[in-house]
C-alpha cells in the first residue's frame, strides 16, 4: 500500500466496489448449488459485475475445500487426491509433532553446534541467512505412512497423506560444520528440536556432509510454525522424524546417542527376532491419486494420475495396471524428474464399464521395484512394523463407477 495516500482516501476510493464485492462473495458461495439445481440462469454473470479488490493475502476460491485431516492431536495429513503437480501448498503440508507446535520467536532462537568441533558456535537466523543459500525440491514422508483402518472407504489422504513436497531453502549443513571445524573422529551428530519434546535423533556425519540442509524457507516463505519455524533440519530422502523441526542444537559425537525415537519407536522388528535400527531411507513408492476413493467416475476417457517417489534417488519408471496386475503399462512421467522428489505420473485410460482394478508400481534409479504387501510380509513378518511399509496399493472401480480402496492388498 502506498504510504503517501491517506488511508481514508483509499477506503473512500474502494467504497464503490464494496457492494459489488459483497454480491460477488454471495454468488460464489452459492454458485455450485445453483448450477446443479436450476442451471446457469440462477448465477450472476461475473463478466457483468466488477470484481473484488486486491488483498494483502490471497485466499482460495470459496468453493474449494482443500484441507488437512487431523489425527488424534499429533498429526495431520495432506489431501493428495485433491492436489495437482508435485508441490504441496505449505499450509497443506502434513504435520507430525511430539509435544505440539511451539511458539518460537526467531529473535530468541539460536542454533548451537558443539561437541567434536574445534569451536562451539551459536547461529542466529540472520547468521544462517548470510551463508550461500541452497534451494531444492524434495518430499518429506513420515516413515509410518500406511493407514488402512478405513477399509474400502479410504482416500489417498487417509491412506498415506503423511507425505508432502516443498521447495526448501536454507544453508547446506556442511557449511556450518566447516565453520565450527568438524573434528576427524566425528561420525554422528545429535539433532535436537526446541519444542516441548526436545525431540532428538542421531544423524550420520556422512549424511550431514552429503545433502543435509538447515532450512529457513518453504515454497518461498519463512517456514510455518508447524513445519519448524524458524529453522528445521532437512535430510532429503530420510524418514520424516529425522528432519528435526525447531532445530536448536547439533552435537557432534563418535557414536550414536540411542535416543528414544531411534530405539523404542522408529525401529522395525523382523520375523527373525531382530529389529532394524537406523533404517532411515524411504524406499520407492507410488500411489494413484485419481481416480481414487471417494470419486465416482463415468464411462469414457480418464487420466490415471498419481505420485511416485524414492528416498534413494530418481524415479525411472511407473507401471500402471487397470486389471489388478495381469497387465502393466508404462505411465508418462512429468518432468523434471528430480531425485528424492515426488514425481507426477499419468496414463490415459478408457473405462468402458465393468469392474476395474487400478494399481501402480514405482521403480527407482537403483533398480528397486516397489513391492507387493506379500513380498514385504514375507521378509519382515505378518505383524511387522507400520514403519517403512510401501506396498503397491490399488483402487477398485465398481460397476456403477464408485471407486473404492482395495482393502485386501
Amino acid at each position, binding site marked *: 500500500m502506498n504510504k503517501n495516500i491517506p488511508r481514508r482516501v483509499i477506503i473512500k476510493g474502494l467504497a464503490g466496489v464494496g457492494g459489488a464485492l459483497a454480491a460477488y462473495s454471495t454468488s460464489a458461495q452459492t454458485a455450485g448449488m445453483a448450477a446443479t439445481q436450476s442451471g446457469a440462469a440462477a448465477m450472476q454473470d461475473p463478466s457483468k459485475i466488477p470484481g473484488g479488490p486486491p488483498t494483502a493475502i490471497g485466499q482460495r476460491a470459496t468453493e474449494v475445500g482443500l484441507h488437512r485431516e487431523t489425527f488424534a492431536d499429533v498429526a495431520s495429513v495432506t489431501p493428495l487426491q485433491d492436489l495437482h503437480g508435485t508441490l504441496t501448498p505449505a499450509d497443506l503440508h502434513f504435520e507430525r509433532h511430539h509435544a505440539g507446535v511451539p511458539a518460537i520467536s526467531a529473535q530468541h532462537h539460536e542454533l548451537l553446534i558443539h561437541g567434536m568441533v574445534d569451536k562451539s558456535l551459536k547461529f542466529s537466523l540472520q547468521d544462517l541467512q548470510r551463508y550461500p543459500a541452497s534451494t531444492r525440491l524434495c518430499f518429506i514422508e513420515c516413515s509410518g505412512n500406511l493407514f488402512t483402518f478405513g477399509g474400502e472407504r479410504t482416500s489417498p489422504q487417509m491412506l498415506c497423506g503423511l507425505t508432502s513436497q516443498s521447495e526448501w531453502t536454507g544453508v547446506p549443513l556442511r557449511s556450518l560444520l566447516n*565453520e565450527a571445524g568438524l573434528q576427524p573422529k566425528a561420525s554422528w551428530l545429535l539433532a535436537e528440536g526446541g519444542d516441548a519434546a526436545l525431540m532428538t535423533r542421531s544423524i550420520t556425519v556422512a549424511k550431514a556432509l552429503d545433502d543435509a540442509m538447515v532450512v529457513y524457507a518453504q515454497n518461498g516463505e519463512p517456514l510455518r510454525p508447524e513445519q519448524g519455524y524458524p529453522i528445521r533440519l532437512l535430510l532429503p530422502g530420510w524418514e520424516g522424524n529425522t528432519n528435526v523441526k525447531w532445530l536448536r542444537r547439533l552435537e557432534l559425537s563418535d557414536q550414536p546417542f540411542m535416543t528414544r525415537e531411534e530405539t523404542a519407536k522408529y525401529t522395525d522388528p523382523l520375523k527373525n527376532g531382530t529389529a532394524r535400527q537406523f533404517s532411515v531411507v524411504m524406499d520407492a513408492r507410488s500411489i494413484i491419486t485419481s481416480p481414487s476413493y471417494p470419486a465416482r467416475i463415468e464411462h469414457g476417457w480418464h487420466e490415471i494420475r498419481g505420485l511416485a517417489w524414492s528416498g534413494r534417488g530418481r524415479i525411472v519408471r511407473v*507401471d500402471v495396471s487397470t486389471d489388478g496386475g495381469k497387465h502393466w503399462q508404462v505411465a508418462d512421467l512429468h518432468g523434471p524428474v528430480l531425485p528424492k522428489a515426488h514425481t507426477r505420473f499419468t496414463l490415459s485410460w478408457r473405462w468402458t464399464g465393468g469392474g476395474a482394478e487400478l494399481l501402480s508400481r514405482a521403480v527407482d534409479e537403483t533398480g528397486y521395484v516397489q513391492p507387493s504387501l506379500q513380498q514385504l510380509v514375507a521378509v519382515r513378518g505378518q505383524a511387522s512394523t507400520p514403519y517403512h511399509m510401501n506396498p503397491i496399493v490399488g483402487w477398485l472401480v465398481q460397476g456403477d463407477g464408485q471407486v473404492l480402496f482395495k482393502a485386501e492388498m
Partner: protein
Amino acid sequence: MLALVRLLVMLLFARAGAIAAEPGISLGLGRTVSDAEIKAWDIDVRPDGEGLPAGSGSVAEGERVYAQKCLMCHGERGANGINDQLVGRIRNDAFPFALDPSAKKTIGSYWPYATTVFDYVRRAMPYDRPGSLSDNEVYSVTAYLLHLNGIIDREVSVDAASLPKIRMPARHRFVADDRTTSEQFTDGEQ
C-alpha cells in the same frame, strides 16, 4: 575471447569489492559460546554414560514420584494407562513383534538401553511439565521403571556409574538396516 570476458567480469567484481564465497570457506559467522551456555542445553545421555549428571535415585523414591507425576498417563505400575505402556516382559524374553500384533513394546521387552529412559524422561516428561523433574527424581523414576520391569532389584539405586552397566533384555535384538541386500525387490509379481 572467453578468457577476456572472464577477466573483465573478475575485474568488475573486484572493483565492487565482491568476493564469491567458496564452499568450505569460513565466513566467520556464529558467536562463540560459554561452557555455561552449552551446559544449559547439553542434556543428552549416551549409552556409555556420557552426559549423566551427579546424583542418584532409589526405587522407593521413584515409586513416590511416579505416583505423583506419571501414573495419571501411564497407569498403575506402568500399565493400563491412557498413554504408552512402560512395563511388561514377554515369556523367555522373546521378541515376537513382527509376528504377534498383541505383543507390547515396553521398556522391559523392547528398549535396548537403560540410559535412554533417563534421557527421555529428563527431556520430555512429564508431558504437561517437561524438564520439571530434578536429576535425582529422574534417576529415581528410571530406577522404579527398571524395577517394575524386573531388571533391577528393589534395593538397587542407580547413578551415573551404574546406569550404563545395566544390560537390557532386548539389547541384542537391534541390527543395522539391511534393506539394500535383504529387500532387493525386482518384480512386483513375486
